[in-house]
């Protein structure tokens, strides 16, 4: 991959983030940046604060200290839906799809921040509302094609197997055409083949749509292969930050998380 052309300026920067729940310190003084077009991974042992970090980025948690800068501007305290409207989409560790709705409807709901027609035009349907609906249907069909989920278009997602649900959830996040895509353990609980598929999708999303991706993942092999840079967290503190090679050879990271291979 052509590193230099793909990666651009800083898209999002967190500065000195500290977050605590009562006496429990979830994050302490975390700073790092995410550059446009890169795949950035956050790794660390269980309870290290990885998901809390994502929740801070998409506005679900409000840190006591620190700042989030998005696209060169300091972000004021925001509700999650406002952050979504700025172009941040995410998937969840334990799938958060709308189970009663079809795959197609889930993806169409992903586009919702871009849809504009008001309630009266919606009531009449013919005209602007229908035109908008068809325009977004076409866009969503493109994503359905990309993910290869044509056959389950009209199936309620509650009936789909786990791996497919993960794929639909990625699709819903993509439908929002995000500038920054947050993936919380996209490969948790998957078999090797499903992991390979998912890795391929992540690389393709990054390559074809130029979407910046931040992911949390426990499969170290996958993380090292996919990501451009990695942040390592442990007990809410930043342990290391850098390219996969730097992180792999960092003594603190090896002690806290990676462990030592006994073959050496």
């Amino acid at each position, binding site marked *: 991959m052509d590193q230099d052309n793909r990666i651009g300026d800083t898209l999002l920067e967190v500065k000195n983030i500290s977050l605590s729940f009562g006496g429990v310190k979830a994050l302490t003084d975390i700073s790092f940046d995410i550059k446009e077009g890169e795949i950035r991974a956050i790794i660390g042992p269980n309870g290290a604060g990885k998901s809390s970090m994502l929740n801070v980025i998409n506005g679900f948690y409000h840190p006591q200290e620190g700042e989030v800068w998005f696209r060169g501007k300091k972000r004021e305290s925001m509700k999650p*839906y406002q952050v979504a409207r700025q172009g941040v989409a995410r998937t969840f560790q334990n799938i*958060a799809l*709308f*189970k009663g709705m079809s795959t197609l409807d889930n993806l169409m709901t992903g586009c919702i921040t871009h849809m504009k027609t008001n309630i009266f035009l919606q009531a*009449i*349907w013919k005209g602007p509302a229908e035109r908008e609906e068809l325009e977004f249907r076409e866009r969503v069909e493109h994503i359905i094609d990309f993910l290869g989920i044509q056959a389950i278009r009209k199936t309620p997602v509650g009936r789909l197997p786990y791996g497919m649900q993960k794929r639909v959830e990625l699709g819903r996040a993509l439908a929002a055409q995000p500038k920054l895509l947050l993936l919380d353990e996209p490969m948790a609980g998957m078999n090797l083949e499903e992991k390979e598929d998912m890795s391929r999708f992540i690389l393709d999303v990054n390559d074809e749509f130029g979407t910046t991706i931040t992911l949390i993942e426990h499969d170290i092999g996958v993380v090292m292969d996919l990501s451009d840079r990695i942040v390592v967290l442990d007990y809410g503190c930043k342990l290391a930050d850098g390219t996969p090679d730097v992180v792999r050879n960092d003594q603190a990271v090896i002690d806290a998380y990676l462990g030592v291979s006994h073959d050496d």
Partner: protein
Amino acid sequence: MFYRESGDFKTNYADDQQSFPIKLDRYAVWVLLAFAFFVVPFFINDYWEKSVLVPFLVWSMAALGLNILTGYCGQVSLGTGGFMAVGAYSCYKLMIAFPGLNIFFVVILAGIITAIVGIAFGLPSLRIKGFYLAVATLASQFFLIWMFNKIPWFYNYSSSGMITAPERTMFGIAISGPSAPSWATYLFCLTLVTIFAFIARNLTRGRIGRAWKSIHDMDIAAEIIGIPPLQAKLSAFAVSSFYIGMSGAMLFGVYLGSAEPGEAFGIDKSFLVLFMVIIGGLGSILGSFLGAAFLILVPVLMKNIMVGAFGWPADLAAHLELLFIGALIMFFLVVEPHGLAQLWRMTKEKLRLWPFPH
């Protein structure tokens, strides 16, 4: 020419997203509407109007409204009777204040007033969910009925405390009041219900409907993909109350002619509409109609059979009717907890492959 969806291919997205994707469904709906609009009015008599068709249409409207709130948006409400009373009293006050106003607009305006009241009572839904919200809406039911009983301005200081609909017209034909012809009240209700059933369908299949459904399925995920919960929930309360207000106005103005809040709009009416929605099918437009038909028409049918055909005493028939309806409700909920609409959906799914089982 079997009724099924296989073989009915679509070549563009507009066709695929229409209200009735199956060709025979489309024809059936047009035929039914044509029959209801152009044939029934010539044969309708007072009995069919007062006991069967108009109550069915009025309660369908209420069920549509509650289905938008509870079925689509997932907010349980027990305030339906109270909101119908708001519609009825707005209708009454508007009829008195503007005697020349076309009754069609009176009903729409009554709906709008109810929508505003609905938004106010929907505010707690941002903080509380499920059963707790149901209890909060129960408060609105009791408060509203109490208010219409206690404040004489609402019933124009009449000595009986009741409100009575004066004669109001549309195109010079009386729609409300004692001299309104059967066919006119029927057509009036049918037109309103038809228009607003299509509007409900349009709202629920588009952007707003998906926002409601996503709030229903998982409100946190909905917020994270960019749906403001406040806006989504309150719009559902507004639209739902609008429908329920219109049904209240129709119930009072067109059907009953006079009303007293505790009796016509009591808590039992809130439960009646909730049962309609649950039995018909949560989150289904068709289900609203099926549920209303079940709870309004089956009792009429049973009464006819027991009193008319068997000659049993009327009080015995009335009690047996309650027992039987209760048993039927339980039977349906055990056999198909997702309601009559789901039963119909399953039938269609089976027919897709018929005559093969898989």
